[in-house]
């Protein structure tokens, strides 16, 4: 109906707006314009899911509420990917579910059963980062095989890797099974080999950071964002995938980039039915599609390629 047309217009206005974000005055001016144009939407957009994706989605939601639609309330929760799907795949469920992994077959089946049309939106790329203690001046670069050896338990002493290195036991750390990061590490990097028995798996990232920061012989893995914000406490290990060591950074992380082997996408899933029924959900989905790359960097993620973003946006807009 006419509703959707209006919001389309609105979308375009907004898109141009984000480009000139730096200029505050213009920003507010166009905001007022929006209000005048009776484009003001109301309602709730409810987002739950992965805690990994949360910082990015929260940032986005805030930006949307502050600059685009002050009367739309976007609530972002962080129950975890699976718990989030639980709330997503019910009648009157959440509008979006953030996920640090792609939807599972069972979950998709549940959605089909309920008649919920689910759209996968790739939001950003995360680089799995291997970190060691800042005082560790030997293992600053490791090959991908050595990483696997360490975490699977094939080597247990630093000196087993290189006889110049200290004869000290390696202590491995990582997020526990609750986290998508663990799943990715286990499935994609270790190729489903069991982790070393005495690995210290933790629920909280803050704990992990502290643990590695405290243990000269420690080595741990987690998402790039947690390394990025704690560079004073831990140092990233350069990984040699065959062409020399690559340190993770917003530039190297990418599905095609040099750090591709340790890169994984993170998603948000949209309830398409909700987007069709509620203009604010649709509006927000479009906003996500348009601006997702603007906030990836500051929240510790690498952006997805522009073409991919464009294609995704079109797909979203096609909902109407």
């Amino acid at each position, binding site marked *: 109906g006419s509703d959707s047309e209006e919001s389309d217009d609105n979308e375009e206005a907004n898109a141009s707006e984000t480009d000139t974000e730096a200029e505050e005055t213009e920003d507010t001016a166009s905001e007022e314009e929006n209000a005048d144009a009776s484009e003001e939407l109301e309602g709730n957009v409810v987002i739950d899911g992965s805690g990994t994706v949360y910082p990015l989605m929260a940032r986005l*939601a805030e930006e949307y509420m502050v600059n685009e639609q002050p009367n739309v309330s976007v609530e*972002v*929760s962080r*129950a975890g990917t699976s718990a989030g799907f639980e709330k997503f795949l019910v009648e009157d469920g959440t509008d979006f579910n953030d996920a640090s992994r792609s939807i599972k077959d069972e979950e998709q089946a549940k959605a089909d059963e309920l008649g919920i049309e689910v759209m996968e939106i790739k939001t950003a790329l995360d680089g799995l980062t291997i970190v060691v203690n800042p005082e560790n001046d030997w293992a600053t670069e490791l090959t991908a095989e050595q990483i696997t050896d360490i975490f699977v338990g094939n080597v247990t002493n630093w000196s087993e890797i290189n006889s110049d290195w200290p004869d000290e036991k390696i202590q491995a750390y990582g997020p526990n099974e609750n986290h998508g990061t663990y799943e990715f590490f286990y499935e994609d990097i270790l190729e489903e080999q069991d982790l070393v028995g005495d690995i210290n798996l933790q629920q909280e990232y*803050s704990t992990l950071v502290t643990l590695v920061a405290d243990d000269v012989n420690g080595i741990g893995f987690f998402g790039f964002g947690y390394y990025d914000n704690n560079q004073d406490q831990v140092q990233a290990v350069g990984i040699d995938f065959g062409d020399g060591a690559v340190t993770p950074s917003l530039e190297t992380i990418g599905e095609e980039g040099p750090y591709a082997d340790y890169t994984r996408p993170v998603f948000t899933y949209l309830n398409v039915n909700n987007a069709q029924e509620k203009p604010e959900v649709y509006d927000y989905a479009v906003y996500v599609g348009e601006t997702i790359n603007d906030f990836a960097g500051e929240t510790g993620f690498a952006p997805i390629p522009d073409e991919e973003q464009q294609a995704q946006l079109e797909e979203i807009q096609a909902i109407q």
Partner: protein
Amino acid sequence: MEKLEALHQNNKMNARLRKNSIWKSIFFLSTLFGLVVLAILIIRVLIQGLEWIDLEFITSRLSTQADKAGIMGAILGTLWVMVVVIPVTLIIGVGSAIYLELYSKKGKIQSFIETNIANLAGVPSIVYGLLGLTAFVRLMDLGNVVLAGGLTLALLVLPILIVSAQEALRAVPGHLSEASYGMGATKWQTIRKIILPAALPSILTGSILALSRAIGETAPLTVLGIPALLIPFPQGLLDTFTALPMQIYYWTLDSSLVAEYANLAAATIVILLLILFILNSIAIIIRNKYHQRN
């Protein structure tokens, strides 16, 4: 019994008195220990959080950007939750206490209910979270709104309130109610006009302490699923909300992502402690005033 003469000369009184004063110091130092820890704890959060506290921090909305973030939403959320907790616990709590103390006959039912209340008082708060999730969020289909959170916390502090209200009622001197009955007042008249007013200060003290427990609770709310980012202020009982302890929890969790969040958490702790401190002071003032009068 001349043997006892020894007792009067040789009872080592000096040594015993020395022992007494040594232990007295130990007892005093033990008491001091708790206070010192309290001081350290408070000083630490003050150092970390104080400079982040200003009017803007208190009155602004939540934000993912540390320098813009404020806690008005969390404060309002906490207040709204109290809007549910206060009447629900007071009515049910005082009602139950009156029933148990003044109406129920000493017997199986009464002892069953009292044992049950004592047990509930010891049930971990996180279990209440699970109850709230099942009963209010899912079964009553309220969602994670103020009402659901408030009812959960109300059930959590109810046993505490009942027990303290019972004590308050028990402490009302029997001669007051006797005087009332003696004039032909009925039981309910006596309760309403004499016993309740006399017990009121103690009941208030007890309920303030129970409320401050509710205000500081985090675990049940984590189970209910309180949004981590919620910018609009809650406007009513059926709005989603966030609360001060939840905000502290999320900020500290995410301090590994944004270092300043740790300061925000500390600043919020300061505010929360301040609120609790004010509530406790009120309770103490009421208590002392009341005690003086007796």
